């Protein structure tokens, strides 16, 4: 690892100030991606701004019918939160599937959403549940937030403060793990809300994406049978030694059907 200047601001404003104007400064939330990257010397930040000291960023609140989860809330805390379990059990289940216990004790929702790793789990929930991403600069709707491989709508210096998830009628997440890394090779989050059904897929493409054909079919008939013949094209899907694009496309169908069945249980 290259050395860097370390900052541990106590407020969001101080964090933003520490990042401002520094092209090679990095914000660190849980550090579960950043630290391994730095260990490999695959980045050389001038400054690392540790968001761990900002109290206002952690915590889970029930707001209206949904939940708002502070950006620095750990995956473990989401997975066991009675509020999350009661409001959106699928979200607690998703959090429990990330990494491993020690990773869940450090990794955060804000970090996961801001990073937009193509194989991260949270983006699927954010998109399927049509969550709102709250930042120090305003709000982002879920659609359009994830723009590509490690790319989001966040501007330089913009930090996620929390993510607000409306309560769905039914929802479930099914994850097919990359056999080695345990990241999502294909993860499908299905949510049925009063505004319709949303199906979000992670792991399969450059970033999370929705499957319109499935959403339409499920909006008419929320059962796995309704989507059994819908095939996701494999063009532009990820391919590596663990899964070809064709295999991933196939798994999207399998995981989507299983998610619908789980949501209906």
């Amino acid at each position, binding site marked *: 690892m290259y050395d860097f200047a370390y900052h541990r601001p106590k407020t969001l404003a101080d964090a933003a100030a520490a990042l401002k104007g520094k092209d*090679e400064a*990095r914000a660190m939330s849980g550090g579960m*991606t*950043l630290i391994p*990257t730095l260990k*490999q*010397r*695959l*980045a*050389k*930040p001038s400054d690392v701004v540790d968001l761990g000291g900002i109290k206002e960023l952690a915590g889970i609140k029930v707001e209206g019918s949904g939940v708002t989860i502070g950006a620095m809330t750990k995956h473990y805390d989401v997975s066991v939160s009675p509020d999350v379990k009661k409001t959106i059990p699928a979200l607690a289940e998703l959090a429990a599937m990330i990494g491993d216990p020690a990773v869940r004790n450090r990794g955060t929702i804000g970090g996961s959403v801001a*990073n*937009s*790793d*193509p*194989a991260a789990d949270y983006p699927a929930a954010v998109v399927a549940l049509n969550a709102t991403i709250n930042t120090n600069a305003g709000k982002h709707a879920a659609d359009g937030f994830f723009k*590509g*491989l*490690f790319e989001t709508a966040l501007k330089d210096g913009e930090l996620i403060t929390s993510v607000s998830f409306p309560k769905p009628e039914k929802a479930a997440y099914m994850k097919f793990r*990359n056999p080695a*890394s345990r*990241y999502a090779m294909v993860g499908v989050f299905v949510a049925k809300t009063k505004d319709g059904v949303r199906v979000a897929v992670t792991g399969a493409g*450059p970033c999370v994406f929705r499957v319109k054909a499935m959403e339409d079919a499920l909006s008419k008939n929320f059962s796995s049978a309704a989507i059994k013949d819908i095939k996701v094209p494999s063009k*532009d899907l*990820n*391919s*590596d*030694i*663990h899964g070809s694009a064709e295999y991933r496309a196939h798994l999207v169908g399998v995981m989507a059907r299983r998610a619908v069945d789980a949501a209906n249980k």
Partner: protein
Amino acid sequence: MEIKGEYKIAAPRDKVFAALNDQAVLQACIPGCETLEKLSDTEMTAKVRLRIGPVSAAFSGKVTLSDIDPPNGYKISGEGQGGVAGFAKGGAVVKLTEDGGDTVLTYDVDAQVGGKIAQVGARLIAGTAKKLADQFFGKFAESVGAPPPTSAA
């Protein structure tokens, strides 16, 4: 891995071909290109800084134009050393065909990476290569096809 793509550009073929050979255009379109210096009509040295999520690596290397067949196309190749990150090299065969007053650009990229990025980032290689190819050709198509060419470079 191989990546193919196609863009329709609202500009005549000669103009598109000229832009493909315009160092300033290339510099503006190569993702993360910090410097591009001409050694000859077909050889340039380049410094490129790529930031893909948590990874940030500076590559230095060269860009070569070959199989030049005006105005039908050419091959643009690049190879760079990214220090501890490893190396990347790739080439794109670019073909231009006329479509009325417009030009259809097709590309066929072959890319290789090696060293640490290949060893620990295998899952991201294909996606990254595709993203960079899309960025380059997308930006190129946009800059050449963009109506008033006041700031084409």
